[in-house]
């Protein structure tokens, strides 16, 4: 392991299904075990089968925030991968290509090394399937990753298949290493600096795995969903894990059914959730309104993809903020959270469940394609630090005073002799934060009917003007209260800077690196990314905005959806910074927005 550079980006590209994914996964795990920070990004093809699959890995010994704008190394399994990747290979970068597949044209500034992967595997090793492992060996050698981690992983992975297979794979790994050492003079220049000693213990997971883990940790037991890219990852993770703790996952017949089931489960007192993506959210909005009216806690996880309509299912966009905040007919207050990193995905998912239970209302949790599908090495979550909130129920009020129909407790029950004598006031208006204790089916004396029609405190249908007015206010009081519980916003950069960037979701990572890069150029920038997007955490945003000369709002969508929310509710002069290409921002693009000029890449 060298003492060299501490930040490398490598991209592996090739035909989908040809082992790009497994090569990348293996390399990432080796690196993480060796103690490095890793952050990956995956761009799958549009095609059903075949097409270009690109897997980008960034390695460093300091925390990482974005996938990296440019490549140090491009490992191209075929010509398409070469053509796509070469555009972002650094001028002094290294191109490694499978010479059995194609030969790139001459003439550019970067280094080119032929790696006859197919030949090595087939001819030299007589082990055609070993191609990916040869590639992993080559990558490991370049970065100076300790071979023993690779060997141990192969042992774990193939142990069950017998010693012969393990040995064949280890030989393939060694062949890759050997090839690099013999054929790439000066290969040591790509070696990573030693992994930092003080680095916290990490785990490598994707954003969607983080959501799944937190869902388990929250005590959620019922997940209803309908497959959709890229949210299926969450559904499938939970389908495997939830039953182990007595939970259940049902694949519903469509998203309407999934949301209906979630509403039913939430009503019956059980934490429940549905993971979906854009089209699914559109189908769920009617039932979201029902959950709001009936005051049912639930979590909707939206792993955003590029829209509108079916759009580009495997591409990135932050395009669903409008529907999250404003979707549905009528006025449907709801809480919207977003997460900035894979680690944050874990903690904000927990917050989503807690807020849903506290405020008895739908919480929309926004992840996105970039975050959901990328792996990061994140500090091992400490479950002992996690708070789990459970909802306020009739039981938590002390029940019905033992007589089974609540007589005598005029605060929570209808008074004897009145029309609703003795009935439980499910929607008690006498509540500062709008939250009224909920009876759970099975609780004696709490019998009530949940409904999407306007209703009085007892849940009885009423269309009079006072009821609609006071109940609307009750529902909105919850937002006034909930904003106080907003998780701390992500802050970075120089609080005294005159330029501020407001962003949300995974764009926060790119902006963080932009702040660093701009600082190197002598430009001070401040950054904030709220985790609660709705209700708008003005108490976090106002102090940030104060004193700034320029406030940029960076997001991956066309109209500037968060900028619209800000302008609507927190008047100010916002510069909208948007891209809508199906890809996340590059750090350079953010820098350019700040400086107003195409940025010469920071030499490093």
């Amino acid at each position: 392991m060298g003492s060299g550079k501490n930040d490398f980006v490598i991209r592996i590209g090739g035909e989908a299904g040809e082992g790009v994914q497994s090569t990348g996964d293996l390399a990432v795990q080796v690196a993480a075990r060796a103690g490095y920070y890793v952050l990956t990004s995956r761009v799958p093809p549009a095609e059903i089968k075949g097409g270009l699959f690109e897997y980008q890995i960034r390695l460093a010994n300091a925390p990482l925030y974005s996938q990296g704008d440019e490549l140090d190394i491009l490992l191209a399994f075929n010509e398409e991968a070469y053509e796509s990747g070469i555009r972002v290979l650094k001028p002094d970068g290294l191109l490694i290509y499978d010479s059995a597949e194609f030969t790139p044209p001459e003439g550019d500034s970067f280094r080119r090394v032929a790696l006859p992967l197919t030949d090595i595997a087939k001819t030299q090793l007589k082990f055609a399937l070993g191609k990916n492992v040869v590639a992993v060996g080559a990558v490991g050698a370049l970065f100076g990753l300790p071979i023993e981690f690779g060997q141990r992983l192969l042992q774990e992975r193939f142990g069950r298949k017998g010693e012969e297979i393990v040995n064949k794979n280890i030989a393939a790994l060694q062949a890759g290493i050997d090839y690099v050492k013999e054929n790439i003079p000066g290969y040591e220049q790509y070696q990573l600096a030693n992994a930092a000693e003080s680095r916290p213990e990490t785990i490598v997971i994707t954003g969607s795995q983080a959501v799944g883990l937190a869902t388990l940790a929250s005590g959620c037991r019922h997940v209803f969903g309908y497959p959709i890219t890229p949210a299926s990852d969450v559904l499938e993770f939970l389908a495997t894990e939830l039953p182990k703790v007595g939970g259940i996952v049902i694949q519903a017949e469509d998203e309407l059914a999934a949301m209906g089931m979630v509403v039913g489960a939430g009503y019956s007192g059980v934490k429940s959730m549905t993971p979906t993506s854009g089209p699914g959210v559109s189908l769920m909005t009617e039932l979201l309104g029902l959950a709001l009216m009936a005051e049912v806690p639930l979590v909707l996880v939206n792993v955003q993809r590029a829209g509108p309509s079916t759009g580009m299912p495997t591409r990135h966009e932050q395009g669903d903020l409008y529907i999250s905040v404003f979707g549905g007919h009528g006025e449907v207050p709801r809480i919207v959270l977003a997460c900035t990193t894979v680690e944050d995905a874990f903690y904000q998912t927990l917050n989503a469940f807690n807020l849903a239970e506290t405020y008895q209302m739908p919480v929309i949790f926004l992840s996105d394609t970039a975050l959901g599908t990328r792996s990061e090495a994140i500090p091992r979550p400490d479950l002992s630090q996690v708070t789990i909130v459970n909802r306020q129920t009739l039981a938590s009020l002390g029940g019905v005073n033992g007589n089974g129909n609540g007589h005598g407790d005029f605060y929570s029950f209808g008074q004897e002799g009145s029309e609703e004598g003795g009935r439980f006031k499910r929607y008690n208006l006498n509540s500062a934060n709008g939250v009224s204790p909920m009876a759970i089916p099975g609780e004696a004396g709490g019998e009530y009917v949940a409904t999407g029609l306007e209703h009085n405190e007892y849940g009885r249908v009423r269309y009079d003007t006072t009821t609609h007015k006071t109940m609307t206010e009750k529902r909105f009081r919850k937002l006034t209260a909930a904003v106080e519980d907003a998780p701390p916003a992500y802050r970075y950069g120089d609080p005294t800077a005159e330029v501020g960037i407001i962003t949300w979701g995974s764009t926060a990572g790119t902006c963080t690196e932009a702040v660093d890069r701009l600082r190197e150029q002598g430009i001070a920038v401040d950054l904030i990314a709220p985790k609660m997007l709705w209700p708008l955490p003005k108490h976090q945003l106002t102090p940030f905005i104060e004193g700034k000369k320029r406030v940029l709002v960076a997001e991956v969508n066309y109209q500037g959806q968060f900028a619209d929310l800000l302008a609507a509710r927190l008047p100010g002069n916002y510069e909208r910074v948007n891209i809508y290409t199906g890809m996340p921002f590059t750090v350079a693009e953010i820098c350019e927005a700040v400086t107003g000029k195409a940025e010469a890449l920071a030499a490093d």
Partner: protein
Amino acid sequence: MTAAVVERKAEDFKSEVKVTWCPGCGDFGVLNATYKALAEQGYDTKDVVVVSGIGCSSRFPFFVSTYGFHGVHGRALPIATGIKMSRPELEVVVFGGDGDAFAIGAGHFVHACRRNIDMCYVIMDNAVYGLTKGQYSPTSHVGFVSKTTPTGSSEEGINPLMLAIASGATYVARGFSSKPKDLTKLIVDGINHKGFAVIDCYSPCPTFNKVNTFNYWKDETTPLPAEHDPRDRTAAITMALTDDPLYLGLFYQKEGDSFGDRVGARSTGDAAQTQALVEKLIAKYS
């Protein structure tokens, strides 16, 4: 349901809400039969959840003193599924109209049948849209004149029993709101059936359906012959396809595992169990 069998009266299940159906509406019969069925089962009001969609008939939960969920149009079954799957110990009974069940809710109906969750679904079938004041419904006959079919409907009416059987329902019956005793028995048996029970119940809408009236159904219906064996699917199909006469009673019943049985016993998993699993997964990813 493991509710203790206590003596209950139909009145115990009446709520304080005034029933606002039109005079002569068939739904009254279904409501009374349900009160009786619930009393007969000896349930405690706290252990029953009555679920519905939107429609005249779907106002049902408000008239019952148990827990209830008056959902949105067409989604009664998904909501009921969520309740029953997360709280198998509750008794979940679902009510709604023919539009709610077979128009906007048709997809959920098919899947509820094949999923075979342990619930009972009573469709109050008046062959018209009552609440929206008289449009044709999926069970209206060809030629039915309504506000949206001023020259008569051009579509074949759905045969709810056939649809249920084809979709895999394991208890399929037809009732008539004016035969309260038979209906009570069908509901009791449907509740006790292990799996998804479908009861399509003729329930005239005197206000908007002047064709399928009380007299119409009284004349057209007759009980299934005594020798009909509900375990015989072919016979059930034959009887369901017959429209002269329209048979009443239990057409089909198949005993076997419900969805809940297949999924297996579940618990809500305590905090310690949860923590152990999460820690195990964390270890796996490190």
